[in-house]
């Protein structure tokens, strides 16, 4: 069984992300399953960022520490990840950084600098890279010092290119060394570089040369490496995608015609991906007409405009969405309320990140569950769905667009930073858009003169005509059946009842199987509850705990509003011990479960350090709860 983890660390903006993407591509070409995520600092550039990759010939559910390889493109990466390296692992570093001292690395977080200084001083050492290497070597770690500058000079001399163009190959020298050490044949590295830079030959050539010079250096100094056997998926046509990209794909395939956004991490890449791929070929349509089928992607001046423009587009009959993160979602609150009042179908993709406020803008958090459910003033019921992984994110986006239009309501799709920036590989059959039909609900194109936009109906749903098809009024004010503003007590009461009836229709129409999923043995006495991107880490932990003789099941909440109270109660009432796993401090899902079912969730595993939840975190937490009988465990792994 192959199951390896690696980290590529370097300065923000120093090519860490491209390096990670090349590594992921090489791994997929070699036939393995892979998960790769980017951890980066929320400053402009220079601070430490890293790419964490896990690959295996089996299923890769979550990232894992410690790792078997670290590529440190600068001194900060060596020192930051000193505890992340397995004893049987190896470190690739730049020999020119040996004398650098943590106390002199200005981009390093002061708290980390202090911790390193204290740890090294307790060993009678200064926190230098040289001493870090010494500590690692004593642990049994193999260290590979690269003369980075000399290797770059060699690249420059070999291709005769200006240094400016070879300066960008530093990262490739690092990853080529690491991949070769892991047993990747050079051709996989070259093919991965071709996939990454194939459309830019001027960039490709120096990178290919850099990779071969790095491999040559490793071979002559550390010997020829044994070749890693190919993975089970070699030669298969597979899709590499991030969470941002797969949601964008679903929106394109699902018939979205209008997307707005104001740039914010970790949401923006979704809109960028739609924009890059908005021209799609359609069978039977002339190529010249393709622009008419394209999606309008609009960067607005702020999030208030973003949602209001999406509302406007939806009223004209377009399938409309907007995409944002916590701070932007705060600005959208008033408009969400309007969309509920005016019964406007819009999809809001909410990519959660670590708050409160701007908090840590580029890190993981699941803190907007309650915010999304209770967003908007007044009684504002709406649909909230949370995706657990890339595949769910794809189908949930398609379903969410349908539900928005079928039920004429805002739908909030909860996603997060971890999903956004995590790359995975999928087989084509896993993504089949034909599974979800496009459904647009009660629509009328020619409503006639006596059209009642808000006609009172049994199911709370009124026929929806596009603006301009007849005389009609849509506003944020309470209204009568025609949409005219009304403060009449009967009109008010009827409209309130209508909106609540509609919410009941939603609750009845969405099958229970869509609302929550029980993973594992129904008779297990311990149940984990969670929502969103913790799913795969929990599944990985359950597999690991089962090997250790602990049987657990997992109740994954998919639809959080309308809340599946009865089905949840059915499962929870059978469990002896319920543990909530959430990346938020308040236990937001636990609060919601108690409010809807009366069940008090006594045990919790929380991750509050704004790093992704690993399966080993949950294994640790569950074991502590069972063996030490603690009620709450805060897990703190990650750099």
């Amino acid at each position: 069984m192959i199951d390896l983890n690696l980290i590529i660390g370097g300065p923000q903006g120093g090519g860490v992300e491209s390096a990670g993407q090349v590594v992921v591509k090489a791994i997929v070409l070699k036939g393995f399953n892979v998960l790769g995520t980017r951890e980066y600092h929320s400053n402009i550039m220079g601070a430490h960022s890293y790419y964490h990759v896990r690959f295996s010939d089996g299923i890769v559910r979550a990232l894992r520490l410690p790792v078997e390889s670290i590529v440190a493109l600068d001194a900060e990466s060596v020192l930051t990840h000193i505890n992340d390296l397995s004893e049987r692992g190896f470190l690739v570093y730049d020999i020119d950084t040996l004398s650098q001292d943590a106390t002199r690395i200005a981009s390093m977080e002061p708290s980390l600098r202090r911790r390193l200084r204290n740890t090294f001083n307790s060993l009678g050492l200064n926190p230098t890279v040289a001493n870090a290497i010494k500590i690692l070597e004593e642990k049994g770690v193999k260290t590979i010092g690269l003369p980075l500058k000399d290797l770059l000079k060699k690249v420059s001399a070999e291709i005769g290119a200006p240094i400016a163009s070879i300066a960008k190959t530093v990262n490739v020298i690092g990853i080529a060394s690491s991949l070769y050490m892991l047993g990747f044949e050079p051709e996989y590295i070259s093919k991965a570089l071709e996939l990454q830079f194939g459309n830019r030959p001027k960039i490709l050539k120096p990178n290919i040369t850099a990779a071969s010079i790095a491999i040559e250096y490793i071979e002559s100094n550390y010997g020829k490496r044994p070749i890693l056997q190919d993975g089970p998926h070699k030669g298969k046509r597979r899709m590499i995608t991030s969470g941002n990209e797969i949601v964008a794909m679903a929106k394109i395939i699902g018939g979205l015609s209008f997307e707005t956004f104001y740039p914010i991490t970790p949401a923006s890449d979704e809109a960028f991906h739609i924009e890059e791929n908005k021209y799609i070929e359609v069978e039977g349509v002339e190529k010249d007409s393709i622009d008419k089928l394209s999606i309008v992607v609009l960067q607005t001046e702020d999030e208030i405009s973003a949602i209001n423009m999406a509302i406007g587009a939806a009223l004209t009959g377009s399938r409309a969405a907007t995409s944002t993160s916590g701070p932007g979602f705060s600005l959208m609150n008033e408009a969400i309320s309007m969309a509920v009042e005016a019964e406007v179908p819009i999809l809001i993709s909410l990519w959660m990140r670590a708050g409160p406020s701007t908090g840590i803008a580029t890190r993981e958090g699941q803190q907007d569950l309650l915010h999304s459910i209770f967003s908007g003033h007044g009684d504002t019921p709406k649909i909230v769905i949370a995706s657990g992984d890339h595949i769910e994110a794809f189908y949930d986006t398609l379903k969410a667009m349908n539900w928005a239009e079928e039920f004429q309501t805002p739908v909030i799709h909860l996603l997060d930073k971890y999903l956004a920036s995590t790359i995975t590989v999928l087989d084509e059959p896993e993504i089949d858009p034909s599974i979800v039909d496009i459904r647009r609900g009660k629509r009328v194109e020619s409503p006639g003169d006596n059209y009642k936009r808000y006609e009172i109906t049994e199911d709370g749903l009124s026929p929806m005509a596009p603006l301009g098809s007849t005389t009609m009024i849509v506003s944020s004010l309470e209204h009568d059946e025609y949409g005219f503003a009304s403060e009449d007590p009967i009109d008010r009461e009827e409209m309130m009842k209508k909106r609540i009836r509609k919410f009941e229709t939603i609750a009845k129409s969405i099958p229970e199987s869509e609302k929550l999923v029980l993973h594992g043995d129904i008779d297990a006495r311990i149940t984990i509850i969670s929502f969103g991107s913790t799913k795969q880490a929990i599944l990985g932990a359950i597999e690991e705990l089962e090997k250790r003789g602990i049987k657990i099941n997992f109740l994954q909440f998919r639809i959080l509003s309308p809340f599946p109270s009865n089905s949840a109660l059915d499962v929870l009432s059978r469990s002896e011990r319920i543990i909530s796993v959430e990346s938020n401090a308040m236990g937001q899902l636990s609060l919601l479960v108690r409010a809807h079912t009366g069940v008090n969730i006594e045990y919790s595993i929380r991750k509050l350090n704004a790093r992704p939840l690993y399966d080993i975190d949950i294994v640790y937490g569950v074991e502590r709860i069972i063996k030490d009988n603690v009620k709450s465990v805060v897990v703190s792994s990650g750099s």
Partner: protein
Amino acid sequence: MIHIMSLASRGSLKLSGKASCASCWNWLPHVHYPFIGYCSIWRVTTFDDYYCLNYELVSVSGDRFYWCSTCKLRLTRDDAIIHWNGNHRIFRAAYVDPDVREELYEG
């Protein structure tokens, strides 16, 4: 013709060991990899151990902004003097690789 040679190939030319791009006023170090930089005279990127006859020792004197390569910070003259006295590597400015923007976050 660009007269830039590496220190290793300078032969019998007797320049101070410090007289390389690494301490030249005209040279702007790469933000992340300061052993690479941009020569504002020759308008080319060089390694820090290159040199040429246009060498001019970097100094903090005029009232302008400076770049501290140790701290990766843009500094005023007064701050630059403090960093200089702390043995930080001070330069006239930094070289920002135009591709850096590809990896920045949006806010």
